């Protein structure tokens, strides 16, 4: 009796683990499912320790995740390497505070949008075979998330809301957001990978926004020739920054 109970518990654990693993890493699924785990087969005694397996999977996944996160944030930086999201990058980087606010708002939107679009893709679009509506559906979700962010920000930080102005609703059309959602599908990321990819991209976006805002704040104090003052020098600086980020090339993928 006790044996049987243990066996069932192990079975459930494995089922649970399978789900988790699917969420975590679809390509590792096959390795696990090949292990026989019928309660009656007594596979637990045959040396297959679920805890060990789980730990190993998670550990491998973790280092993958860390690399994914860093790689997305720095090496394949969404702004300076992929050249996505340039509109807010140039538009809201005048002041450090607003750049940080924009970065955080975009982080929120991007991560949420990446997650929501993954769910949408795998729970709605793929089962119904209507992937051709992907862009439409994604934009719908992104717009809703942005609207929500806007409502929250208006309530919590009216000054930031005022400062960000039109750039806040424009997150909807920030190509980084849609780009990341689409890249997630294209690169067949798992749920967690999608989330991390979204978050990493957003972190990279925020990092670059903040760095660039710092540079531009200093530029306002410099005696830039009139010919280059304002946007021209900002573009030149962005170019040099992109040049510097090329130093990360080859670190990941």
């Amino acid at each position, binding site marked *: 009796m006790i044996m049987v109970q243990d066996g069932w518990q192990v079975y459930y654990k494995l089922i649970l683990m399978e789900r988790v693993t699917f969420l975590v890493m679809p390509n590792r699924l096959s390795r696990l499912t090949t292990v026989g785990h019928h309660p009656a087969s007594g596979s637990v005694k045959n040396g297959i320790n679920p805890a060990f397996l789980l730990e190993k999977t998670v550990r491998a996944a973790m280092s993958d995740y860390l690399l994914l996160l860093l790689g997305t944030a720095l090496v394949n930086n969404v702004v300076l390497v992929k050249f996505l999201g340039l509109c807010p990058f140039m538009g809201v980087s005048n002041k450090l505070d607003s750049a940080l606010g924009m970065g955080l708002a975009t982080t929120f939107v991007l991560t949420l949008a990446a997650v929501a679009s993954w769910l949408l893709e795998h729970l709605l679009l793929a089962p119904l075979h209507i992937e051709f509506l992907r862009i439409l559906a994604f934009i719908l979700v992104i717009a809703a998330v942005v609207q929500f962010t806007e409502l929250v920000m208006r309530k919590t930080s009216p000054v930031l809301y005022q400062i960000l102005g039109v750039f806040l609703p424009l997150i909807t059309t920030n190509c980084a957001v849609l780009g990341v959602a689409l890249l997630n599908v294209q690169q067949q990321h798992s749920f967690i990978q999608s989330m991390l990819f979204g978050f990493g991209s957003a972190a990279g976006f925020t990092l670059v926004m903040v760095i660039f805002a710092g*540079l531009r704040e200093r530029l306002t104090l410099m005696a830039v020739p009139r010919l280059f003052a304002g946007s021209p020098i900002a573009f030149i600086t962005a170019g040099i920054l992109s040049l510097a980020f*090329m130093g990360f090339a080859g670190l990941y993928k």
Partner: protein
Amino acid sequence: MMNRAKLNSSPHAKADSAVSVIMRQVLMALGPATLFGICIYGWPALFLFIITVTAAVMFEAWCLRLAGKPVKATLQDYSAVLTGWLIAMTLPPYAPWWIGVVGAGLAIVVGKHVYGGLGQNLFNPAMLARVGLLIAFPVEMTTWVQPHPWFSSALPGFVESLRITFIGMDNIDAVSGATLLGHVKTELSQNHLLPHSLDGLFDMANVWLGLMRGSLGEGCLPLLLVSGFWLLNKGVIRWYTPISLLGTVFMLATMFNIYDPEHYLSPLLHLGSGALILTSFFIATDYVTSPQTPFGQIIFGCGCGVLIFVIRTWGSYPEGAGFAVLLMNSVTPLIDHYIRPRIYGRDHKGKPLEVVD
């Protein structure tokens, strides 16, 4: 006689310090290592050096003229000479003449005068030029030749040197090779493990004396170190950046070398190669593009160190010091924004201290 119309604020005294004096001191400190580099690489190095410095000065004069600033007076601050000099120090000594000119143009025009001239630039002009050249002309910028001691016959003659600098080398593959770091990178990518892949090619003494392939000025480390410490002693630079930079690279290299000596270079070779000493004492200490406060400078140095190590070890550019410096230049405003000295009578956050009796 007193000028009654003009209001002069205190102080009515002044220390004997001037921008040009500081710049001249740095130039003097660079002298020995440059001479050494020219000696071991021969005439082409001298030509390239002269061309680069002259081009830098010409570009500076042209930009000053365009900006309507006094040309002669401003040139006398020696900043353009210094920039050109530093670019020349980081170039492959047998690079063609136009590399020097393009580099000087990049540094002086794009790196400096577009921003408004001396003191206004966000990025180190010399490093900007170097990184720009490296990306635009990878072949010319990675053609390294073997140095030969003191006027030996192995060095090209005067006419031959003119050909090298102004027309180009014919037998590039025959004389050129990789730098230490480039070599390590290639060998590792072919799964040749470290201690063996270095055998007979790079020994420690040669690395430290600068008798190995490299850029013009990264040469003799003892000379660079002595000059660096002379600058420290003169108070021209402060120790925070160079020491933290070198310390970080040394520590990271030691850790990884102990962990896996077959894949990670020894710390002493790390310190001795890739113009690390030159970078830490002469480039990362650039006033304009590095932080103001001691703690900020330590962060800057550590950041440079980490980035240099990461880019060297895992990235595609083994000579990645320029990228590291540019990247840290870009975060300098942030460091200056967040790291500030503690104000008298206040804590680090700017709140007044508690009264202690």
